[in-house]
């Protein structure tokens, strides 16, 4: 029985009502559809002696246009876990926020610090459930009671655990540097230099990556979020002041029309100041 005013409550979660309309529009518009903001990107991470160093560039593109020059790609997940995100910008942010909330609830419930593998498992389940429609490739790094760990999660839910990783459109360039420069048990400065060089290679050789380099160093003593670690050398410097001085535009005529206001009613109310 289905009367027109008996409402079927909408299911919570994703709503696919418009997907057939969108498919028809895409067929009709043929390439002029709005493009989501992707992070193009080079992200990299390395495990060193005392912890993990994560690095990322700061450019976000929307097809051929740079949408954001100072975007932040290293997201907070837990006080001891940070995550770099490549892929569709909104997807990476929302997914990492969701996992961060879940980890916080877990910490409050159990009184323990979350482990990196827990974040990885939650992410893997989430991304596999949506069969790659959520375009988020992430590199998670953190230090927990079992040691320092570096994982990568792909958009379809694939997980890899390695001592050094690079993801994003610039990952081939970054991986080359990593493969050459990685040694087990690096010192902090060497690890920072390695990640910096890897991201730099991505910035120079990939159109989707650019501008500054952000680093995040996670150790068991705490987190050092260095933003920016290295600034882009192509900052624009204005050579002139472009404000026009007063009086540049000549005034030809001047007309003043006074507004005639009439007092209709006057009411005086005493304010209580005691």
């Amino acid at each position, binding site marked *: 029985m289905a009367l027109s005013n*008996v409402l079927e*409550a*909408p299911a*919570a979660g994703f709503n696919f*009502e418009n997907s*057939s309309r969108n498919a028809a529009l895409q067929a009709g518009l043929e390439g002029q559809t709005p493009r989501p903001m992707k992070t193009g990107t080079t992200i990299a991470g390395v495990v060193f002696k005392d912890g993990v160093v994560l690095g990322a560039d700061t450019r976000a593109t929307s097809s051929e246009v740079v949408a954001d020059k100072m975007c932040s790609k290293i997201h907070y997940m837990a006080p001891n876990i940070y995550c770099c995100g490549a892929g569709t910008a909104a997807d990476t942010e929302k997914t990492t926020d969701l996992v961060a909330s879940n980890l916080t609830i877990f910490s409050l419930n159990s009184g323990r610090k979350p482990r990196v593998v827990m974040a990885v498992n939650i992410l893997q389940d989430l991304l*596999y459930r949506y069969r790659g429609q959520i375009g988020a490739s992430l590199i998670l790094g953190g230090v927990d009671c079992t040691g320092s760990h570096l994982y990568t999660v792909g958009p379809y839910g694939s997980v890899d655990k390695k001592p050094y990783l690079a993801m994003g459109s610039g990952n081939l360039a970054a991986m080359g540097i990593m493969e050459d420069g990685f040694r087990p048990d690096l010192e902090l400065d060497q690890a920072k230099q390695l990640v910096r060089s890897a991201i730099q290679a991505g910035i120079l050789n990939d159109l989707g990556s650019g501008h500054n380099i952000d680093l995040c160093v996670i150790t068991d003593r705490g987190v050092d979020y260095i933003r920016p670690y290295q600034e882009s050398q192509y900052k624009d410097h204005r050579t002139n002041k472009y404000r026009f001085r007063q009086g540049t535009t000549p005034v030809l005529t001047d007309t003043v029309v006074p507004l005639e206001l009439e007092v209709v009613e006057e009411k005086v109310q005493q304010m209580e100041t005691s």
Partner: protein
Amino acid sequence: MNSRGLRSQLKDSVPVAGFCPQSQFGVQDSLRGGFSSVKNELLPSHPLELSEKNFRLNQDKMNFSTLRNIQGLHAPLKLQMEYQAARQIQRLPFLQSSNLALDTLRGSDDTIGFEDILNDPAQSEMMGEPHMMSVSQILWSFHPVSARKVPDVDVGGSYLLESKFGLYF
């Protein structure tokens, strides 16, 4: 963890024809459902539509069958009875219930997913007409048990074929 589903269990899931909202007399409701096309009614328009609609159902089924294999038949039987009881705790038919007891039983009261953020039914802009909804629920309660519509929480408002205890084998 969520994905060890077996294809054979999909046979009890919500059929695809449950997609388009039916109007009076079973004619396509253009105002609410958009223009009709045979393709839309046969196939879901998005690859995730079917799997999302059945997600909780399939997860429950899988968990219960695993539980049955490990602990024996009594475990899912008792749990299913508790689920049935918790599902009956609802507010008036046109008001949205929080389903806290059901969430606690499922263990989803301390996790946040997309179903808590997006399209929250409590924030829905439309509300059913109170009198019609109450009348419709009373009339349905007289219907034979074979196809019973309960204000359903896991599969948004569609019809479920349930046996007396709501067991899925």
